[in-house]
């Protein structure tokens, strides 16, 4: 048999063998799609948990963050003293804007997680 003929015949046998996988191709595709959806759900859940943890940690480390912000903006501790005043004098107005910061920080991390998905 000529070499070229054998190559062609070999390719045909491979194609014929591969065609046998077409009969359950839809089922295989569905299995893969379900796997992808499951992987996406797990990734989203993991990111959300990490985002919430990041948000809570950020709130608990608010003094350090405030100091950093102060030095970054060159405000010489002004934000720090405002926050400290608000914490020491928990009037309704102070509690309100501290809560707003808390919610803002958590929202930022959740939005970040959502964006990653």
């Amino acid at each position, binding site marked *: 048999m000529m070499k070229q003929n054998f190559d062609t015949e070999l390719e045909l046998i491979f194609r014929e*063998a*591969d065609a046998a996988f077409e009969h359950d191709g839809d089922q*295989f595709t569905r299995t893969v799609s379900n796997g992808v959806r499951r992987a996406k759900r797990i990734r989203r859940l993991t990111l959300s948990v990490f985002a919430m943890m990041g948000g809570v940690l950020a709130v608990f480390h608010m003094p350090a963050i405030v100091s950093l912000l102060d030095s970054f903006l060159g405000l010489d501790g002004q934000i720090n003293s405002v926050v400290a005043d608000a914490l020491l004098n928990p009037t309704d107005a102070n509690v309100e804007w501290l809560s707003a910061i808390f919610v803002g920080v958590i929202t930022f991390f959740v939005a970040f997680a959502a964006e990653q998905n």
Partner: protein
Amino acid sequence: MVKNLIDFPMSRSSAPRVPDSDLATMAASGDMFAFEKLVRRHQATVRGLLVRLTGNQADADDIAQSSFLKAWSKISSYNGGQFKSWICTLAYREFLQENRRNKSRRHLIEELAETNQVAVFPADKGLSRDLDRALAQLPDSQRIAVVLCIGVGLSHNEVAVATGWPLGTVKSHVARGKSALQTLLGDYGVA
């Protein structure tokens, strides 16, 4: 617009075939439907490749599924070449990883396959079974080279990239593998 075309049930026969690269771009932006289309289009080639590498359909399907899952997570790294080549290279690497992970288990399977070779590749199931039996008798390197080059249709260069072997080695494995297959298939009365 493209999505609407491939959404339409008659698209399989009447609508123009959407190129793989477009589907991959859509999949990279999170379009699951486009990715499903790619899986449907290439699953037979990938599963065929893996069956010939593993010699076992269940293992091949497991590796094929994990290869497509990996493809989904890495789809943004696809650079627009031949998608079949990209996914088959990924599947081949997944096969190597799985092989390393289950080396001892696989060794046992190979021993079983050797002792029950007639049962694993029965002779009375047509040309594809004859091919499987013939491939099983080739050395690993020749089988891999022949399956990737002729079975999947990759160029010698693409096989060299996928396997990490030098181009000359790939060419020599393909040539020797084909020659051995010709003899073996001739023995079965195929070639």
